[in-house]
C-alpha cells in the first residue's frame, strides 16, 4: 500500500516538476537574479584540460579555475576579482576555446518573500539569508532595546510614528537625554536603526525589517546631533536590562575607555541580555568602545559585494561583519529604512544610510530571531551567530567570525520551522461538519472514533501537519537533517519544495484536490484503503482551507484574490466532499 502511495506521489511530483522548472527559467517573477560584481563565468569547449585554462588565464592576465568537479567535462570555469568585466569579456570571447563568457549571475528562488514594495532594494537582507531565516523565526516576543537618538514611535507634539512602524510592537522606553518617558527621535538615526531590526514587514508598505515580530524598546541616549555621554549610555543599558530587554543595540561608539559603560555591559551580560555594538567608522585596526568591551558583540560593516568597507574598523575585538552599506557607487549601496527627515521629526522618509551603525542592527535583529527560536542565553546566541557566519572558518582580525548569516545561525542553533497545528484543527472541524451532514445510517461513528482510527489519523497528520517526527528524530539521533528529510517533514501539499526548493508561491497543482483524487482511485475497489484516502483528503481539505483563511502562501501564476483564493476554496471543498464520499461508502459496504 505504501508503495502505491509513494509511486503515485512520485509520478505527480515529477509531472509537475518538469513543467515548473521550465517556467522558472522563463518567468522572471519566480526567481530573482543579479550580477555578482567582479566575477566572470567562462564556458570552455567540453573537455578542455586544466593546462589550457592556465595558459589562457595567463594570456588574459587572470587566474581561472573550474567551477566544480564536473569542470573538466563541461568546461565551466570562474574568474574572480575582475576590475573591468566588459573589457575582459571582449578579450575572452575572441578565444576559439571558449563557447561563451558572461558576468556571473546569481539565481535565487524566492523563499519567504515579503510584499513590501521597496524590499527588492534591500540587498542587505538577502545577503544575510533572511528569506530562508524568516521561514523559521520572526523574533516574536523578544524585546530589543535600541539605545540611540530615539525612535519615531509615537505621534505626539512635533513627533510622528513613521508609517512603516505602524503595527510594530513597542515596549515603554526612556529618554535619558531629556529625562522623559517619551524617547522620540529628533535626529533620524535611531529610527533608521530600529527599522532594520523590526520595520513593519509584509504590510505592503515601504521596506522590511529582520525581526519584525520582536518588540522594540526605544532608549534615547544620544542628542539631536547624534552624540551622547557615558553616564546616559550606562544608565540606558541598565534600564533596558531591568525592563526586560534581551538584546541591546548600540549603534554608537567613542574612543575613550569608560569604566561605567564597561560595567553596564557586564551587567547586561550577567542578566542574560546580549549587547551588540558598532565597531566604528574610522577604518583602522582598533575597535571603538563599547564594541571593544568584553561581553559586547563588535560589528563591522560590509558593502553589497560582501567585503568589508574601507570605513569599517576591524581588529582584536571585531566579532562579526554585517551589511553596513557602501554609498561610493550611489545611494543603492546604502541601507534603506524608514526614518524621519533631518531637522523635521514630523516628516517621514525612506533614507539610505551607511556605517557600522547600520551593520549593528542586522546582528541585533538576528539575535532576536535566535532568542525567539529557543536560545536561552546570550552565550548560546553568540555561539550560533559565529558558527553560522559565512566565509570565515575561524576568527581573524579582518573579518571577525565572518559575515552574518541569519539562516546559518538558526541552523547552528538547531532551530526548525515551527510546527503548525492549525490545519489539523481545520481538518477536525471539517470532519465534524461532514459527519453531521451524513445520514446516521451511513455515518461511520463519532468524530473521535473516526479521527482516532490510525488508518485515517496517520494520513491525516501527514497531509495537514507533516511527518515532523522524522525531522525531530533525525535531529536528535543523526544530526542536522538534510534538505530531503526537511522536505519530507512538511505537510504533503508542501512536498513541492522537495522538487522546486523553498518558494513562497506554491504550485497550484500541489495545492489542489489532484493528489487526493488520484489516491481515491484505488480506494474504489480496495475498501481497506478508504480510510487512508479519506484521511489524505481530509488533511488536504483542512490544509487548503487554512491556506485560504490566512491568505498565504500565494500560488504561482494565479493572482491571489481573483484566482488563487477561489482555487483554494474550491479545492478544499472538493477534498471535503471526497472525504465525505469515502467515509460514507465504507459504512454502506
Amino acid at each position, binding site marked *: 500500500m505504501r508503495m502505491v502511495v509513494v509511486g503515485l506521489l512520485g509520478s505527480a511530483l515529477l509531472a509537475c516538476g518538469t513543467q515548473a522548472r521550465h517556467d522558472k527559467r522563463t518567468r522572471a517573477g519566480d526567481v530573482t537574479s543579479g550580477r555578482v560584481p567582479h566575477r566572470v563565468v567562462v564556458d570552455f569547449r567540453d573537455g578542455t584540460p586544466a593546462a589550457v585554462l592556465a595558459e589562457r588565464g595567463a594570456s588574459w592576465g587572470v587566474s581561472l579555475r573550474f567551477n566544480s568537479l564536473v569542470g573538466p567535462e563541461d568546461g565551466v570555469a570562474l574568474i574572480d576579482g575582475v576590475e573591468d568585466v566588459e573589457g575582459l569579456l571582449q578579450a575572452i570571447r575572441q578565444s576559439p576555446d571558449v563557447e561563451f563568457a558572461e558576468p556571473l549571475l546569481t539565481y535565487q528562488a524566492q523563499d519567504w518573500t515579503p510584499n513590501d514594495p521597496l524590499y527588492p532594494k534591500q540587498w542587505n537582507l538577502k545577503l544575510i539569508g533572511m528569506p530562508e531565516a524568516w521561514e523559521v523565526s520572526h523574533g516574536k516576543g523578544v524585546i530589543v532595546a535600541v539605545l540611540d*537618538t530615539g525612535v519615531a514611535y509615537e505621534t505626539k507634539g512635533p513627533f510622528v510614528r513613521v508609517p512603516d512602524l505602524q503595527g510594530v510592537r513597542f515596549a515603554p522606553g526612556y529618554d535619558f537625554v531629556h529625562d522623559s518617558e517619551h524617547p522620540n527621535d529628533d*535626529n533620524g538615526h535611531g529610527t533608521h536603526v530600529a527599522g532594520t531590526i523590526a520595520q513593519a514587514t509584509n504590510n505592503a508598505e515601504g521596506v522590511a525589517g529582520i525581526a519584525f515580530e520582536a518588540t522594540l524598546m526605544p532608549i534615547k541616549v544620544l542628542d539631536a546631533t547624534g552624540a551622547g555621554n557615558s553616564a546616559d549610555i550606562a544608565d540606558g543599558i541598565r534600564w533596558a536590562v531591568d525592563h526586560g530587554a534581551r538584546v541591546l543595540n548600540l549603534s554608537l561608539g567613542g574612543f575613550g575607555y569608560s569604566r561605567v559603560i564597561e560595567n553596564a555591559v557586564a551587567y547586561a551580560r550577567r542578566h542574560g541580555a546580549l549587547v551588540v555594538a558598532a565597531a566604528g567608522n574610522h577604518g583602522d585596526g582598533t575597535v571603538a568602545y563599547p564594541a571593544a568591551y568584553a561581553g559586547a558583540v563588535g560589528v563591522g560593516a560590509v558593502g553589497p559585494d560582501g567585503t568589508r568597507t574601507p570605513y569599517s574598523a576591524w581588529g582584536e575585538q571585531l566579532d562579526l561583519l554585517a551589511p553596513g552599506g557602501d554609498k561610493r557607487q550611489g545611494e543603492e549601496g546604502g541601507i534603506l529604512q524608514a526614518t524621519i527627515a533631518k531637522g523635521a521629526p514630523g516628516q517621514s522618509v525612506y533614507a539610505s544610510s551607511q556605517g557600522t551603525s547600520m551593520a549593528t542592527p542586522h546582528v541585533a535583529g538576528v539575535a532576536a530571531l535566535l532568542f525567539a527560536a529557543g536560545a536561552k542565553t546570550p552565550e548560546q546566541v553568540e555561539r550560533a551567530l559565529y558558527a553560522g557566519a559565512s566565509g570565515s572558518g575561524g576568527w581573524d582580525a579582518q573579518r571577525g567570525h565572518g559575515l552574518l548569516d541569519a539562516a546559518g545561525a538558526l541552523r547552528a542553533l538547531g532551530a526548525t520551522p515551527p510546527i503548525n497545528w492549525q490545519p489539523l484543527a481545520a481538518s477536525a472541524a471539517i470532519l465534524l461538519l461532514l459527519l453531521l451532514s451524513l445520514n446516521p445510517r451511513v455515518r461511520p461513528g463519532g468524530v473521535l472514533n473516526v479521527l482516532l482510527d490510525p488508518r485515517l489519523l496517520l494520513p491525516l497528520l501527514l497531509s495537514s501537519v507533516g511527518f515532523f517526527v522524522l525531522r525531530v528524530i533525525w535531529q536528535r539521533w543523526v544530526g542536522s537533517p538534510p534538505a530531503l528529510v526537511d522536505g519530507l517533514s512538511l505537510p504533503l501539499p508542501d512536498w513541492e519544495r522537495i522538487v522546486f526548493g523553498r518558494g513562497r508561491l506554491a504550485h497550484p497543482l500541489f495545492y489542489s484536490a489532484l493528489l487526493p483524487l488520484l489516491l481515491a482511485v484505488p480506494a474504489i475497489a480496495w475498501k481497506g484503503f478508504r480510510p487512508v484516502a479519506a484521511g489524505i483528503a481530509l488533511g488536504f481539505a483542512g490544509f487548503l482551507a487554512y491556506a485560504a483563511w490566512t491568505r498565504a502562501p500565494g500560488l504561482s501564476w494565479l493572482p491571489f484574490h481573483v484566482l488563487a483564493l477561489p482555487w483554494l476554496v474550491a479545492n478544499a471543498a472538493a477534498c471535503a466532499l471526497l472525504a465525505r464520499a469515502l467515509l460514507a461508502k465504507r459504512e454502506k459496504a
Partner: protein
Amino acid sequence: MKLKGRVTFEDLGAGAWMLEAEDGKRYELAGVDGGRFKAGARVEVEGHLDAGAASTAMAGPIFRVKRVTSV
C-alpha cells in the same frame, strides 16, 4: 585647547562634521550647529576633547567646540 585644520562632512551613521587637523588626526566636531561649516573650509576651533562621549559617526575622537574661526 585649539585645533586648526580642514572641515569635511562624513556621511556615516547620522553624518558628522569632521576636522582633518594639522596634527594628522581626524576629530568629530560636536556641540556646534553644522550649518556653520562648509566642506573644505579651513578653520580654527576652540574647545576640548570629550573622551567620555560617544556618537553615531564613530569616525574619530569627539571634540566639543566652543568657538569656530575661519583661517
